[in-house]
């Protein structure tokens, strides 16, 4: 073999990405911004190319077809020179030998490894939860199963009143199934939204005929002698008959292979500002990672789409040697319930009694609009919008760029809304009309 050829081969980096979700897509795009040559291998357990995971509720509701799910175009992987191995699961990471092993018996060596394995549905230890008629709702396969099922069943109980549970409930309802939601917390959407926003959303769901039960959960799932689900005994003593139970409490980091490899895992895989784990050249991103949070500076697992892409992207850049730190994630959610849009960003439920936060809330129940602004140290740190969401991005700017709201600025923001003229002059110029040398991004 000619020496030159071997050298060229050695120069090119091999990136291996475990998982083929949005964090993986972010990573491919981050790598390719800096490295056109390197080899990228993506190993995904699911059978399809990366798809819009949140779109499975649109699919289940019958609003879109399977052909609309793909996140990128047909030629995406070829164009980005990605060797895509679908329907393949990584079973072992050897960070000393720098190789991974798959369930197909293949061993693949890497120079840089990204663990982007996402989350797995959390199944609580309720008596009767193991067995037939229990479903999850996090993958395309789950959605397809539920589509087939919805033609055969009349009733479903959804355990979990968070985003995934509500979306499952709404979509099953659209398929003609009578749905009851059980939420242990006193209100739905307790994680990302506040009480009032949750109540407006709950009303919308109740108005279309979805039953919402808060403050209760399943104590036991009861089965007939054949093992099929009969119904659910609730913590408040009631018994609800049902054909199936959808467990949609949320996802937990899919971190087992990392743990087995001796990589540091707390709630998720711990990563530094480059998204690297404690194992050299092994990175993690997305729902599986416990990465830095922009506002608190703490490491948290925040399993949302934009964080997954951004972490993937930042890890990609850093794996390719760009040395650009991750800016930190910002919790954000945008969900609509039967046409009622809701958005929440940043800190929306400041700790009760904590005087360092200042909250301004405005509710109009008749119009179904709500706006809550949360300030700390004369800065906006969070907001909730229901109904009238058009200014959301402009509010996000104040949080993201940590703009100081001294003098009249805060009152103006509260009374007149977020205007670009409230931005500091310097930020405005650098953003919108930079001097030529400072442009870009």
């Amino acid at each position, binding site marked *: 073999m000619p020496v030159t050829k071997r050298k060229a081969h050695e120069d090119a980096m091999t990136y291996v990405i475990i998982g083929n979700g949005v964090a993986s897509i972010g990573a491919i795009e981050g790598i390719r911004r800096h490295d056109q040559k390197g080899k990228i291998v993506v190993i995904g357990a699911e059978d399809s190319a990366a798809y*819009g995971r949140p779109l499975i509720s649109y699919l289940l509701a019958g609003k879109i077809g399977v052909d609309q799910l*793909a*996140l990128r175009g047909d030629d995406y992987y070829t164009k980005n020179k990605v060797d895509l191995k679908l329907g393949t699961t990584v079973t072992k990471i050897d960070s000393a030998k720098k190789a991974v092993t798959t369930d197909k018996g293949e061993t693949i060596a890497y120079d840089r490894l990204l663990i982007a394995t996402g989350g797995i549905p959390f199944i609580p230890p309720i008596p009767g939860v193991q067995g037939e008629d229990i479903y999850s709702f996090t993958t395309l396969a789950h959605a397809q199963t539920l589509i087939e099922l919805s033609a055969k069943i009349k009733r479903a109980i959804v355990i979990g009143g968070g985003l995934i549970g509500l979306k499952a409930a709404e979509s099953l309802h659209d398929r003609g199934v009578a749905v009851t939601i059980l939420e242990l917390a006193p209100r739905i959407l307790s994680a990302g939204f506040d009480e009032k926003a949750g109540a407006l959303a709950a009303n919308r769901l109740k108005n279309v005929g979805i039953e919402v039960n808060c403050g209760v959960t399943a104590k036991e799932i009861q089965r007939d002698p054949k093992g099929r689900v009969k119904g659910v005994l609730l913590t408040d003593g009631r018994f609800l008959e049902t054909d199936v139970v959808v467990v949609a409490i949320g996802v937990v980091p899919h971190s087992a292979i990392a743990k087995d490899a001796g990589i540091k895992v707390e709630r998720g895989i711990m990563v530094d500002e480059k998204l690297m784990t404690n194992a050299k050249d092994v990175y993690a991103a997305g729902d599986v990672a416990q990465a830095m949070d922009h506002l608190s500076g703490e490491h948290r697992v925040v399993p949302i789409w*934009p964080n997954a892409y951004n972490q993937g992207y930042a890890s990609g850049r850093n794996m390719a040697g760009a040395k650009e730190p991750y800016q930190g994630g910002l919790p954000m959610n*945008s969900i609509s319930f039967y046409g009622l849009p809701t958005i929440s960003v940043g800190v929306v439920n400041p700790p009760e009694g904590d005087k360092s936060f200042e909250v301004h809330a405005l509710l109009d129940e008749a119009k179904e609009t709500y706006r809550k602004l949360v300030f700390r140290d004369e800065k906006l740190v969070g907001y909730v919008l229901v109904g009238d969401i058009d200014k959301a991005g402009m509010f996000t700017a104040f949080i993201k760029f940590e703009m100081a709201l001294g003098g009249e600025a805060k009152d103006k923001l509260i009374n007149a809304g977020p205007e670009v003229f409230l931005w500091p002059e310097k930020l405005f110029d650098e*953003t919108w009309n930079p001097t030529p040398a400072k442009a870009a991004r």
Partner: protein
Amino acid sequence: MKRVYPNKDYCIGCHICELACLTAHSKSKDLILAYTVERTGEGLSSCKHVHEGGPTCVALSCRHCDEPSCVAACISGALQKDPESGRTTYDREKCVGCWSCLMACPFGAIARHPLENKIVKCDLCFDRPGGPACVAACPNQALKQEER
């Protein structure tokens, strides 16, 4: 890439750029029909918005960021970064109207379509031979398209 840069010292708040944008994105390519028929009937909207703060005005639209927050947030792949042209592209067919991009873009550059679950965002008039209509229409050169 060449982006459109607004200069607030030159902007006179005449909204002509908005009308030019409306016309450029209309079917008729006629200002009056675009404004009277297509705007009211089909929800045709301008991607450009003139912001007013006291005596100051400025016309803003999508910056086609290098690392766009909207692309990171888009759950359907409707918004993507085209590595060749540098544009942040929008595929209307793919969009499901989840408003994630509208929430994530800190430049307020994304609006809801008034009638459909779709968004309205600047496309840099990529298929218009003369380049962005707003730049061409501004009477005081407050909008410049250039490489910076």
